[in-house]
């Protein structure tokens, strides 16, 4: 009924993507990040307000808010919630239209999502009980090596002999890393070894083979070399999604638009 584009805003605990539809065309008009914290609702509200202001969107023009992610039920301004499984599937398919397998590795969890040919979720698996297959492992390594997280990838690129990390537990692996450092193992080898360990943990969710194309999303996908570590573990090509931290938020924005349309 309305003339012109209607903005549809979706928010996640950390991220926000704002899209609108003009006819059947979806377009992102705003996106942003904020650090996560205990006050999920307040942080989200602040991000929402900031993005609206920056993109000159009026609050009253917002037709629908869909929240996703672990903190989705804490977002008081959300109209509805959809799990990140569904949202990632929709977001990734938007960016990589023929994607069949999604590997999402975040700071606290990792997910495997299998899609059917139409892009609908066929099956999924999640790991949020063990830090060994998540970005948390890389955070521990960065802290132990005294480097910033984003630098880990470029350091690992110089590895000649990735260290073998045998512990399945991040806590014990940290002890191993201390031992390796004491023995003079180069930092780049340790980082590469940790990347390989994370990839190995994710393998247990994937099984023997994943349908191609495999798309890698989540914050850990931004660490250089993680895609190669996954490829090495899988024996299959892995593509990093464009803007990998935003795929869930993007999916939620699209779903919000679909609900209003």
């Amino acid at each position, binding site marked *: 009924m309305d003339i012109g584009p209607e903005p549809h805003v979706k928010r996640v605990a950390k991220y926000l993507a704002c899209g609108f539809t003009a006819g059947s065309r979806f377009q992102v008009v705003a996106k942003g990040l904020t650090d996560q914290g205990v006050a999920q609702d307040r942080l989200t509200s602040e991000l929402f307000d900031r993005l609206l202001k920056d993109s000159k969107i009026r609050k009253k023009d917002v037709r629908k808010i869909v929240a996703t992610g672990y903190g989705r039920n804490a977002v008081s301004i959300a109209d509805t919630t959809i*799990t990140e*499984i569904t949202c990632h599937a929709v977001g990734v398919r938007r960016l990589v239209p023929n994607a069949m397998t999604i590997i999402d590795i975040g700071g606290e969890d990792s997910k495997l999502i299998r899609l059917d040919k139409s892009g609908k*979720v066929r*099956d999924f698996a999640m790991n949020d*009980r063990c830090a060994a297959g998540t970005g948390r492992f890389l955070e521990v390594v960065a802290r132990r090596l005294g480097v910033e997280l984003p630098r880990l990838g470029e350091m690992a690129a110089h590895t000649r002999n990735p260290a073998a990390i045998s512990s399945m537990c991040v806590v014990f692996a940290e002890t191993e890393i201390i031992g390796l450092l004491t023995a003079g193992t180069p930092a780049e080898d340790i980082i590469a070894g940790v990347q390989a360990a994370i990839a190995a943990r994710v393998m247990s969710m994937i099984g023997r083979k994943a349908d191609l194309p495999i798309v890698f999303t989540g914050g850990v996908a931004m660490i250089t070399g993680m895609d190669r570590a996954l490829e090495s573990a899988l024996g299959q090509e892995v593509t990093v999604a464009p803007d990998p931290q935003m795929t869930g938020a993007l999916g939620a924005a699209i779903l919000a638009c679909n609900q209003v349309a």
Partner: protein
Amino acid sequence: MRDGPEQITLRQWDQRYQQLQKAGIDQPSYGGPLSRHIEDGDTRLLKLRYDNSAAALRLWNFLLTEEDRLHEARDRGKKIVGTMKDLGTVPVMAYSLDNVVAFYPDGAWWIPCVMELNAGLLSIADSLGIDESFCPVRAMLGAFVTGAHFPIPELLICSVGATCDDFSAIAQRLNSLGYPMLWWEIPHRRAPEPGEESVKLPGGFSAPRCQVEFVKSELQRVRKALEEFAGQCLSDEKLSAGIKKANQVRRLLAQLRRLVFTAGLCPMPALEMLIAEMLAIHFCSDRDETITVVKELLDEGKKRIKAGTGLLGADAARIFWVNPVADLQVMNLLEDCGGRICGTEYMFTHALDAIPQDLPPMDALARMALADPMVGSSADRASRICAEIRRFDAEAVVISRIPGASHCVLEGQIIGEIVQAEFDVPVLEIEVPSLTDSIAQALRTRLEALVETVRERRKR
């Protein structure tokens, strides 16, 4: 509170109880308001949601008074047998004797959940060297040590062999603490080889005649032990009568499952259905009362279907559930997330099948014991699950892992692969510890995602 079917809290049940009393509800001797069970320390009950029918009230009161019933049975001079690991065969034999009551001490695995760890049973197990890397059945050790729950049975009969490693270790530990046990061996069921006589088992599996004969000989030892224990003969006539009675329970449960799992609108919630199915194992220490309880549930279900009323939305995702949950709250959670149970495999499916009555009773019981899906391969178990998925038209499968339970580690993957190869439905594996409060959000995300997946697939 509305008049129709509803899931209500324990506190709301106090109000509902008064309504039912005013309406003249017919209560058994163990009846009364559900909230009284909190005084026994069953504080988890405060967090659950219950069906609001009189039938559900009876079911819950029946379950939660089992310990009292066992103590009363002892006071009346009955002998108490603890039948362990074997789920559903030896109790049939024991209940064929009129001065014997049998129960399943392994069922103590639910006590840590129901009492929200207050009873310290798992700590006792830790101190005995059976820590959290073992199955929650280890709570049974604590129950034996404290004697604060069920009366300690005078005779323990425990199956061993094709049983999970965890349970065997826990039972052996119990034995080492000075609790004598009659061990009987159940072999790993295998398919007959060429040249071997094949015997059809209830539920559809087959086994070679030599395995049936072996199990029969083991059950003959159990029979003799029960006779000596009871001081009376356990004749074939008594066994046949016991089988007939057990089959009454099994037939009623089969009707209840079919009614609830195939109804358009779900007439009975997952939690009450789980409890009802569990009655098949050892009749909650009262065989006749079990029949009454299940009949009432069945009648309530039929009444609701006839009235076109139900508890969940018509679009609830039809979920087949594999393995019982340590935390009963998860059954409520599934429904909160938009799912409904349409099919179950709670590790004792054979106890829901009718025991053959056209065979000599010991032969029939031996076949029944061998029909246990858990004593064969995971692929066997999966085949049975597939048959039920087809029967109840399930749209997705949840395999609930029990932390520390050794049989679960690879079984889920095997079952998942076989089910997906046959039906291409989503299969979700989750782990459910005794208390899920801290991981409730993680479980919710998984279950909601599964329901979303099912609903999207319906649009195909």
